[in-house]
């Protein structure tokens, strides 16, 4: 038995030699190939009198042509229309191949699409006419010969300007035109500009075309004018619309345009109307180009032959010969810019001196609609070739599969023999005749059974190899196609695919990844279910074949054989099935004793799932397709939700709640966009500062996503209780392990990353430390800050040293802000339920206090930098306080040290309270004697005394200055005495001034008061004397008693 391994029944070269999807590329003498490949079509006949035997496809066109023969009164125009690639030209070619008119009565002018240049087209027409057109062609050659391309382009553009300026007529109102039509007509006319007294149009498109940026854009390489001029000389594959202007021909977004328009206000206004109605403008430019092209090519001249004249001469000559002129055009769009000359002929009816025209032309739907009314209204028949005209695509393609198997030479040979023998069915079926000695192919039966066949009229059963029915369907339904047509199908399914198949089948690498991408490759099953436990290139190839040739079902053995595919592995369900005869006990198996799944939530009847399997887009994504936006969003959402629910930050004393700092941090770090489905996925992935989890197109991640989706939708692992079908060939335990393992891994990564990135404990420490520094700035001694409660207590009194006032504002800002307690609550507490903090991690929260007390300015600096991004409110507060401290510290320290020194000196070693009380006594007596001065200053005096009385003794304690310590630190640490010193100094000064003023007052009012000390002594002496006399008197009394 002949093996099919690597078998190919065609050659790549044969594909190139026999398959011409574009009839324009088929050599004119290739009728054998054309007819061998021809598949009868079904055509619509929407316009024209019914023809004999209507419904015979392309033969209807031939019959319509034949039936018109002999009518000397009118021309006959037959249009074959349809979409691009539908086979219109093919119909015209077939009509030509089957046209068996009497040469004595008809002259046939056939213009195939194979003609690629306008010059060649003209030559073909001129030579096809029964007149001498040599002079005409010489003039054409002279017009374009010896002239550079750029000059020709410029000539065309200037010709267009000339036409726009002088020749294009204003459209006149039509009877019965609608309002919209009237407006369109008026707009068109206004675009042409207004005529001056000489008749020259100004302020219209002609002027615009002379504006430098417009002129340059119109002549740009690759533009329409450039392509049109190219088409005069070069063999280009011309298609519909190539000779029509587009928006890109105008400088709509060119930088220099506005600058150029500034110089001409009228044109500037005009340009704004142009840009508002580009479709109209483009239509006018197309019209102008057509009119100008005749001049550029020399088609129209005042003297000498024109194309019109040649046609007339030909028709006159044919009339005299009693012949009709039959013209067959495979593609009228070829004429593009010169179709006017042709249309003139179509519209010129025969008469006494002119032979009638019988014209069959193919034209695509768009250009057909643009054919001038004078021609369109004269069309006798219109046949439409739709994309469904070759509805039986397998048969259509089967004919080509047969053709490539036969090869060009054999087809030609058979054709020649058939011509001689007058055979009708001359094309052989390669499957039936390519064996030794013309026998059937030796593997025909196995091939046909395994790969299938298609019935082709006239040929019989044609093998689909290397396709089978599934593969051919998937090739026809390929996703890459933009416009489905017989030509496109032929290009892909035969011209391209057979060459690829030939190469790769020979190398035993078929089907390659490219084929998978090109064919329709919708999948409905998990890849792993088809090729579980197989990896590598061969597994990939097997998978591709299982999808493309098997619709994800097992392949016929001969497919494996032909493509040398590895055997498909039995999937896991088989491995899990109870085994009783296996010599080796599998490690894992289903428990045979378990009749019902313990994963079920309770005994119940198994109901079929309500919803369809939602995993198909996932399986498709696995094959390389982008995931639909909606699907990507859903998977991100569910993964995010599942992982988030597993992030147990409260065991680390962190509590992200809605609208909290911790929540902001966590949501910035871990988000839905953290799940990265690749560059082709919807939305942006999380950026720097966020954690990312990459999902790859591999079996493991597909299984993970499958598991996540199932669990998210069901929250159980019971295959029999799903809303949608359990993923085939998947084991509940495996899916659960896969998901649980990954959720743990991701949640751990989020927690680790979050804790590392944000260091919540440090946030708590910083919050407490910054508040503690603020308390120190407010005069609280570090020694009084022993517990967390000390650091969190509110403070009402603030120091009043003038130099320190700038510091008080940021200090008060920090102390009045609940931020510290809020951050502590979020980052270092135990919470339960929805309640607030229950316990504070004081050991952690106080961790930075030593450093903050030792070097507060540096600590503030560090806090400002560290939290500049994450907690800007902390950073700003720390920075503001630091700045104020650093700027205020020198003056504060100077004031404080000076005050302390003065005070100490003034007190002369006494306690401030003692001095104050003495002064108080003097002041009180002086006040009673109305001698206190200043007279209205007693209240201030009392206040000052109070300050001195309450002044802590520590204020006046001896201190060592430490010049190496930052002044800011010194100033903060000095707050427990500095403000006191300044206040005490001020109070002492107030008291001293009052005492001195009072003394002066006493001196003025009491001469004896000149010497206060003397008076005091005298008073003291007198007092002592009084006391003694009283004591003696008392003693006498006692004695008496």
């Amino acid at each position: 038995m002949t093996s099919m391994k690597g078998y190919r029944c065609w050659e790549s070269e044969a594909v190139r030699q026999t398959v011409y999807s574009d009839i324009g590329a088929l050599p004119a003498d290739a009728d054998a190939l054309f007819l061998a490949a021809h598949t009868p079509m079904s055509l619509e006949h929407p316009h024209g009198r019914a023809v004999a035997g209507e419904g015979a496809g392309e033969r209807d066109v031939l019959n319509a042509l034949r039936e018109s023969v002999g009518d000397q009164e009118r021309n006959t125009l037959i249009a074959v229309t349809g979409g691009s690639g539908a086979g219109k030209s093919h119909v015209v070619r077939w009509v030509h191949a089957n046209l068996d008119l009497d040469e004595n009565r008809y002259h046939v002018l056939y213009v195939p699409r194979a003609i690629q240049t306008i010059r060649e087209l003209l030559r073909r027409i001129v030579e096809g006419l029964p007149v001498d057109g040599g002079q005409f062609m010489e003039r054409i050659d002279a017009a374009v010969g010896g002239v550079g391309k750029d000059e020709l382009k410029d000539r065309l553009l200037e010709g267009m300007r000339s036409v726009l300026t002088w020749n294009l007529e204003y459209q006149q109102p039509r009877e019965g035109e609608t309002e919209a039509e009237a407006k369109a007509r008026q707009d068109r006319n206004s675009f042409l500009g207004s005529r001056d007294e000489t008749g020259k149009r100004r302020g219209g498109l002609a002027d615009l075309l002379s504006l430098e940026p417009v002129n340059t854009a119109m002549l740009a390489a690759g533009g329409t004018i450039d392509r049109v001029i190219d088409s005069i000389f070069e063999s280009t594959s011309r298609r519909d619309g190539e000779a029509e202007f587009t928006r890109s021909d105008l400088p709509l977004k060119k930088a220099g345009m506005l600058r150029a328009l500034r110089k001409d206000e009228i044109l500037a206004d005009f340009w704004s109307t142009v840009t508002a109605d580009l479709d109209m403008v483009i239509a006018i430019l197309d019209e102008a180009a057509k009119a100008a092209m005749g001049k550029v090519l020399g088609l129209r001249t005042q003297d000498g032959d024109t194309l019109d004249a040649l046609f007339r001469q030909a028709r006159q000559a044919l009339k005299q010969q009693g012949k009709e002129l039959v013209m067959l055009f495979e593609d009228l769009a070829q004429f593009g810019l010169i179709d006017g000359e042709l249309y003139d002929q179509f519209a010129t009816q025969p008469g006494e001196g002119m032979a009638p025209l019988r014209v069959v032309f193919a034209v695509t739907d768009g250009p057909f609609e643009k054919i001038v009314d004078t021609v369109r209204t004269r069309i006798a028949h219109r046949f439409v070739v739709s994309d469904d005209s070759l509805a039986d695509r397998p048969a259509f393609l089967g004919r080509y599969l047969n053709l490539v198997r036969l090869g060009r030479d054999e087809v030609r040979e058979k054709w020649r023999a058939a011509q001689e023998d007058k055979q009708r069915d001359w094309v052989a079926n390669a499957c039936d005749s390519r064996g030794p000695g013309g026998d059937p192919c030796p593997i025909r039966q196995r091939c046909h059974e395994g790969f299938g066949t298609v019935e082709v009229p006239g040929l019989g059963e044609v093998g689909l190899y290397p396709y089978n029915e599934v593969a051919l369907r998937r090739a026809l339904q390929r996703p890459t196609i933009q416009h489905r047509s017989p030509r496109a199908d032929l290009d892909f399914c035969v011209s391209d695919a057979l060459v690829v198949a030939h190469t790769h089948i020979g190398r035993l690498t078929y089907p390659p990844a490219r084929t998978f991408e090109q064919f329709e490759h919708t999948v409905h099953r998990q890849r792993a279910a088809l090729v579980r436990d197989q990896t590598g290139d061969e597994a990939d190839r097997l998978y591709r074949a299982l999808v493309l040739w098997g619709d994800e079902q097992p392949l016929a053995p001969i497919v494996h054989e032909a493509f040398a595919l590895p055997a498909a592995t039995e999937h896991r369900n088989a491995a899990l099935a109870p085994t009783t005869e296996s010599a080796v006990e599998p490690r894992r198996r289903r428990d045979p004793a378990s009749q019902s799944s313990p994963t079920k939530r309770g005994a119940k009847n198994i109901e079929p799932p309500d919803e369809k399997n939602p995993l198909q887009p996932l399986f498709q994504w696995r094959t390389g397709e982008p995931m639909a936006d909606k699907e990507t969003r859903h998977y991100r959402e569910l993964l995010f939700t599942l992982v988030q629910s597993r992030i147990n930050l409260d065991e680390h004393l962190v509590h992200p709640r809605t609208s909290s700092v911790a929540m902001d941090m966590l949501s910035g770090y871990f988000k839905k966009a953290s799940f990265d489905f690749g560059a082709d996925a919807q939305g942006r992935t999380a950026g720097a500062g966020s954690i990312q989890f990459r999902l790859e197109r591999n079996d493991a991640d597909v299984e993970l996503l499958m598991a996540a989706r199932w669990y998210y939708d069901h929250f159980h692992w019971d295959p029999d209780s799903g809303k949608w079908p359990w993923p085939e060939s998947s084991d509940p335990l495996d899916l659960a392990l896969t998901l649980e393992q990954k959720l743990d891994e991701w949640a751990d990564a989020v927690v680790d990353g979050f804790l590392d990135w944000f260091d919540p404990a440090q946030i708590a420490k910083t919050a407490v430390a910054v508040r503690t520094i603020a308390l120190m700035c407010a005069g609280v001694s570090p020694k009084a800050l022993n517990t967390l409660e000390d650091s969190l207590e509110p403070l009402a009194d603030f120091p009043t040293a003038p130099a320190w006032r700038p510091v008080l504002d940021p200090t008060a800002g920090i102390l009045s802000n609940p931020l510290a307690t809020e951050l502590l609550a979020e980052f270092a507490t135990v919470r339960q339920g929805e309640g607030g903090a229950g316990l504070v991690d004081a050991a952690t929260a106080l961790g930075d206090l030593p450093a903050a007390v030792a070097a507060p300015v540096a600590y503030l600096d560090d806090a400002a930098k560290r939290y500049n991004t994450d907690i800007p409110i902390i950073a700003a507060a720390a920075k503001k306080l630091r700045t104020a401290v650093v700027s205020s510290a020198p003056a504060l320290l100077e004031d404080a040290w000076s005050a302390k020194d003065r005070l100490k000196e003034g007190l002369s070693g006494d306690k401030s309270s003692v001095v104050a009380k003495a002064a108080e006594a003097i002041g009180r007596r002086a006040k009673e004697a109305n001698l206190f001065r200043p007279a209205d200053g007693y209240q201030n005096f009392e206040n000052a005394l109070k300050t001195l009385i309450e002044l802590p003794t520590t204020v006046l304690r001896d201190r060592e200055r430490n010049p190496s310590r930052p002044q800011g630190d010194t100033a903060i640490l000095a707050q427990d005495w500095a403000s006191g010193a300044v206040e005490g100094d001020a109070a002492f000064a107030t008291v001293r001034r009052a005492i001195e003023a009072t003394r002066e007052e006493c001196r003025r009012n009491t001469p004896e008061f000149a010497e206060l000390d003397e008076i005091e002594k005298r008073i003291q002496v007198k007092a002592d004397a009084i006391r003694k006399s009283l004591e003696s008197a008392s003693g006498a009394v006692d004695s008496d008693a």
Partner: protein
Amino acid sequence: MDYLTTYARGAAPSLLVISRYLAAAGSSGQTSEQLQRALQPRPMIKEVAPRASLLGPALRIGEHLGLFEQDKAGGEQSWRLRTTAAGKSRTSNAREDDRAFYARVFGALNARALADVEANDLSDLALGIIWFCQRDPLVPLNTAWDGETETVVKSAGIRSNAIFNAAQWLAFRRWAVHLGVATLTERNSKNSYISADCTRAIEPILSSMPVRARADTWISHLLATLPVLGHPRLLRVLPVPPTEPDVISGSLAFALLKLERRGKVQLVPAADASNTMVLRVANTITRIGEIRVLEASTA
């Protein structure tokens, strides 16, 4: 000891905070009032009696677990750490530090369990965990008490002596997750589920497990260390004990398979039936003959 009723407000993170503070305080004990002032500063936490707050129950639980002790000698009672390791300061890896602490708490709970059961004084929490760890990990329970969950608990026969209302169920869930014997997954408040999964509880002790041993030996060693995961003596206290005592099922079986996926252990298939240990999860059984530790946590 009724963790889930009288001391329902006690929780593992509270033990962490207290331990950490007592460790920082050094050898000097802390009175309840001192602890309250330190750990429940008035500017943040409304002052209530320690017993009514999180502090009191946590101190009692910590005492029961042997983490803290009261110094009753010499006037005012004060608390101090019984083991310094319980409150050791943070290292560079905060998460590992915290997890290690919870592992020690779980270890302490296990250390008491066997003794308590002999004394017929098994804690409600230990009983709840023994029951929960035997559950099928593929059948999670709704975190809401009402309805199915209540029925499941009731049918397990532990409603009367472990978990009998929503508050206890809440306290139990909290402990189960913190001690590493349960995982939570939720879609929203109505779709929130708790699964039996003791992977986190086992992972920290892998370093103390035999690197390579017969499966039955290895598991015996494991259950001697963490008996609440399925020690036969403890399983017998369940009102509805497992029907197949020789089969490792539920959370422990699932955790071993998960640890194998994670590359922490290798479950080597049995060479012959005599040395086989059976792991059952749902309707799937896995026969193993040997367990090897491939990678142990350093925590």
